[in-house]
């Protein structure tokens, strides 16, 4: 069975990846899954104020995730929302294991993710872009982070949901069944999970299957990230 946009179940949307998109940032990247586009700029390591936030053992990582007001069908009021604060937090937690934070005590690395167009899986696009931007900024990292969303559509497990698929409802035995959305992030080398969220219902066996599916897609994405960084054009800044 084919999906609404003709993809197979294990296929993610067309990926667009570029680095050095924000000239004033120390490192920046754009990553897009189809219509979900994220621009991430990285600043630092730099001095951290107020001083009580400084940690003499490691560097602080601060992520800011936000949707541009024009990125969604209905205008989004600018500024942080309950949702964006949560995503900022999970992004920080997902990126932390990949960065060598202990190399820069008492300082901070700021990661600003801006979604300029949204069509579901924006946090995954933002994480992929953030990983690219951090490497582009020359931050010492253990490995890259790649993320993808896996969903349960009816009885099928599919990779990289679109908004249309996310809102899709199946009537099964007279009951309305909503799509389950599982954003997953993997570390490229150790193949460990650094982000796993679940929105909806899924059985344990299916969750394991979904993680396996996500892992495969994430490894493909990490290859794309590698290629993006290595383009000679990008290095001649």
């Amino acid at each position, binding site marked *: 069975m084919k999906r609404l946009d003709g993809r197979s179940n294990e296929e993610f949307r067309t990926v667009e990846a570029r680095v050095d998109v924000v000239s004033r940032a*120390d*490192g920046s990247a754009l990553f897009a899954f189809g219509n979900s586009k994220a621009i991430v700029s990285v600043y*630092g*390591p*730099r*001095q951290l104020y107020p001083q009580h936030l*400084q940690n*003499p053992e490691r560097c602080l990582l601060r992520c800011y995730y936000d949707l541009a007001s024009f990125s969604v069908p209905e205008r989004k009021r600018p500024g942080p929302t309950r949702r964006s604060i949560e995503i900022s937090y999970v992004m920080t937690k997902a990126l932390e294991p*990949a960065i*060598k934070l202990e190399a*820069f*005590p*008492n*300082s901070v690395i700021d990661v600003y993710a801006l979604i300029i167009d949204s069509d579901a899986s924006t946090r995954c696009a933002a994480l992929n872009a953030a990983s690219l931007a951090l*490497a*582009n*900024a*020359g*931050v*010492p*990292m*253990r*490995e*890259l982070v790649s993320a993808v969303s896996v969903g349960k559509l009816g009885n099928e497990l599919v990779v990289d949901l679109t908004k249309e698929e996310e809102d899709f409802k199946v009537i099964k035995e007279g009951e309305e069944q909503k799509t389950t959305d599982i954003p997953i992030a993997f*570390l*490229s*080398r150790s193949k460990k999970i650094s982000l796993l969220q679940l929105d909806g219902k899924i059985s344990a066996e299916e969750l394991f299957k979904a993680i396996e599916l996500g892992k495969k897609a994430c490894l493909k994405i990490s290859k794309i*990230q*590698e290629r993006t*960084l*290595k383009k*000679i054009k990008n*290095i*001649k*800044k």
Partner: protein
Amino acid sequence: MEEEKAREIVVPGETIENRKEFIAGEGTRKEGNEIVAERFGVVDRSTKLLKVIPLSGVYIPRKGNTVIGQVIDITFNGWFVDIRAPHLGFLTIAECGKRVIKEDLSEYYKVKDILLAKVKSVKTRSIELTMKERGLKKLDEGLIILVNPTRVPRIIGRAGSMVNLIKKETNTTIVVGQNGVIWIKGKNVENELLAKKAIELVSEKPFIEGLTEKVKEFLENEKAGWKK
């Protein structure tokens, strides 16, 4: 662009080498027998100590580095200097290279002054600077340009070959701070701007082989243009 040599570029988490005899150097780590990159950059295979030379990143101060910074604050016992590092540099009265008699330290160095200093020591929370050595001074004329600190070795060249060439051809004095701040002082603005152009050429094309010749050619062409 045909001169560009394919260099081995690595991304964090990529295996550089899996043979036992190699040692992990800067920007890498060892995992079993494998040497893994920890930064985005070019692999240096000149010795068995494998290193990754970063292509981007902020300046990480080292003891003995010559840096150019700007005074941004004055306290009762010294000056805070912004040297484009993760922390501010601090210059104490004892290390300022002048005999301080007056109470008001802005009599010596004011906020916004540009200083040529040396890193005395690097601690977890502070970078101590010194200006006691010869040649370290306040820079009050000339031109300042900023480049990425990772390009500094290329701008200096092997044993200073690149910077000396630019100095000679443009008849200017150039001081390259390890933090990517470059001070140019010439007899006239034209010379300074020409030196600036040459340095920007070097910092934009870190991959070209025989860059010294290219820069020489560029400078000669530019100077020939002036005479016409």
